């Protein structure tokens, strides 16, 4: 048994470090993870957080009602900045939504087994972030009752959307991303909901978990197709993740506006989205693992790995900031060069330097292992990155619009109180959904975590460690299983 205090962040070239600490048996792993849902009362921290979040969500919904009843004039959007906070928030939340499917799809294809402890978490975060993201363009269109114009629905006006517009590509990209992420999340959860169903102690729970587990009974013939379907979904979701923020960046890059009209946008947006998404996973995982005692599953090694990704993507983003400047100068376009110098020194310089400090400077502490494995440091950096990524979108959207081609139309964007409260409210909505998820659904992919435990390996023997009869016994079984799988049956 590996003690829960074992340091699995040390690199050991001769063997792989364990991904689950403090648990030898499969049963104890199930019990610990299910305790999050099965404890009769949620922890105090959950209740407090839920009340605050629910108030925030209520404020968000109320303000949407106020906005629809009054008109978009309640926002600070004003000529020349017509995109304002709603689009900043939209791009911010869509970006957050990228880590989930990245962890579930890309890390799955790369066989990064450490993803199993955090993928469920991150996928749920994706769904909720995309819900927050989708609500902003939804209300930004002004006449909300005409939102169906976004979709190619035959209508009485015989009117179609314009398929050459990046804004319409966005509708399809974000819509597809939401649907596919939801399917991926739900499908991964079906066997775990079945676990909760089989452990449930009340009729109500048994019925509800029973309905949503779709009658999953762990049949190996089912698992066979399930694994294939999961692999295919991962393979489909991988290019999808990369496409979604690329398409979001087209909203900007396809326009002619200096500061937006650049070819670096798609890769730069994707790197930024992964960066911001991982920071949000870290923001949620660091407190949650302590509150619900999940340190044996979301181990320091997991957190350290995520910090390495934050360092990498943060540096990529920093490189992109520098490259934008280089191209602005190298292109010889006076307007481009003006826009970038203006970003760093003009009226929005404060936002630009907050962005640089949070996104490029602060993650650099992760070059040091002591910092990568310090919970307080990683939480602070994650918060800074969340903040910095919001400011990145603010810088992109606002600075380019506020000072465009015609100096006589230049202006300074000021958000209204509705703008600020809606931003706060969207965090409330996000956290409310997330806290409900933690309380009622399996937070960690139980069946996947079990499959990376040593006890799950048919080589492992009969649960009594290595050596002895049990060991040889199952070695033989495994070898013959592999044999019958390959075509050589002679052995």
């Amino acid at each position, binding site marked *: 048994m590996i003690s829960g205090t074992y340091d699995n962040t040390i690199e050991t070239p001769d063997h792989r470090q364990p991904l689950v600490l403090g648990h030898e*048996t499969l049963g104890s792993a199930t019990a610990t993870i299910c305790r999050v849902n099965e404890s009769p009362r949620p922890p105090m921290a959950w209740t407090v957080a839920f009340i605050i979040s629910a108030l925030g969500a209520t404020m968000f919904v109320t303000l949407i009602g106020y906005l629809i009843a009054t008109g978009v004039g309640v926002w600070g959007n004003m000529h020349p900045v017509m995109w304002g906070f709603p689009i900043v928030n939209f791009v911010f939340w869509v970006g957050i939504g990228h880590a989930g499917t990245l962890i579930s799809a890309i890390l799955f294809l790369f066989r990064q087994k450490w993803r199993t402890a955090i993928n469920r978490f991150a996928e749920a975060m994706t769904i909720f972030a995309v819900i927050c993201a989708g609500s902003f363009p939804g209300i930004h269109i002004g006449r909300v009752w005409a939102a169906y114009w976004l979709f190619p629905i035959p209508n009485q006006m015989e009117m179609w*959307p314009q*398929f050459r517009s990046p804004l319409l590509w966005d509708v399809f*990209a974000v819509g*597809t991303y939401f*649907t596919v992420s939801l*399917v991926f999340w739900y499908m991964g959860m079906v066997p775990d909901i079945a*676990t909760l169903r089989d452990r449930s102690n009340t009729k109500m729970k048994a019925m509800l978990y029973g309905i949503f587990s779709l009658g999953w009974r762990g049949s190996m013939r089912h698992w066979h197709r399930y694994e294939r379907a999961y692999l295919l979904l991962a393979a489909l979701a991988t290019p999808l993740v990369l496409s979604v923020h690329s398409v979001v960046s087209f909203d900007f890059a396809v326009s002619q506006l200096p500061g937006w009209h650049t070819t670096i946008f798609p890769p730069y947006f994707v790197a930024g989205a992964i960066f911001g998404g991982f920071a949000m996973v870290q923001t949620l995982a660091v407190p949650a693992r302590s509150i619900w005692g999940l340190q044996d599953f979301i181990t320091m090694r997991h957190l350290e790995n995520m910090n390495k990704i934050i360092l990498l993507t943060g540096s990529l983003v920093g490189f992109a900031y520098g490259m934008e400047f280089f191209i602005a100068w190298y292109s010889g376009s006076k307007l481009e060069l003006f826009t970038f110098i203006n970003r760093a020194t003009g009226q929005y310089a404060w936002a630009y330097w907050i962005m640089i400090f949070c996104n490029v400077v602060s993650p650099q502490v992760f070059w040091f292992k002591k910092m990568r494995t310090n919970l307080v440091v990683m939480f602070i950096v994650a918060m800074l990155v969340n903040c910095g990524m919001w400011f990145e979108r603010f810088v992109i959207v606002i600075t380019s619009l506020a000072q465009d081609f015609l100096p006589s139309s230049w202006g300074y964007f000021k958000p209204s109180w509705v703008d600020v409260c809606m931003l706060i409210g969207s965090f409330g909505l996000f956290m409310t959904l997330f806290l409900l998820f933690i309380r009622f659904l399996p937070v960690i992919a139980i069946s996947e975590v079990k*499959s990376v435990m040593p006890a799950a390996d048919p080589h492992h023997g009969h649960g009594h460690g290595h050596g002895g009869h049990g060991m040889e016994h199952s070695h033989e079984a495994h070898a013959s*299983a592999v044999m019958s799988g390959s075509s050589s049956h002679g052995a």
Partner: protein
Amino acid sequence: MAHEMTATPKAKEPTRMFGMFAEFETPGAILEAAKKVREAGYKWWDCNVPFPVHGLDKAMGVRPTILPLLVFGGGLTGTLLAIALQVFTNSTNLSFWALVPVHGYPFLVSGKPFISGPAFVPVAFELTVLLASLTSFGAMMLLNGLPRHYHPVLKSPKMARATDDRFYLVIEARDPKYSPTKTAEFLKTLRPLQVSEMEA
């Protein structure tokens, strides 16, 4: 009655029985047991396990699924549908009747050709991924016969740990080789924790 749907007329034993299960403690044990059951010539049998045990499907002789082909079909449908949708709505003035009259409308936007290939790529890509993904989930459920909220495995309280930490091998009564006594004896030679009959 449920048994009328599951039990074949050939079954000789009490008709209310679905079959028999053997419980194992480790993945290694069920892997070896599955191999022996397959060698013994049983056809209607399955393993109920809490996670996909590596190599168990191969040991059971589960044939490769046609799922990838269906997913490919789903993706191809998405691509074609997206191209047809965009070309019809934005590039032609064809009309047809589909519940309501639908007319294409050739948009001329910033001098782009009516059929703007590159501009139609993103939507075609997204719909391809969308339909392929939905097919992947839908076909998996369909081929697995899910959702199915009643099943003898779910009914048996002794098998509740199939989604927790135990590994079950179930031989169904409709198997031609099934016999309540001989199958039980055979399963016991595989050194399970317990062997028990299951109601239908």
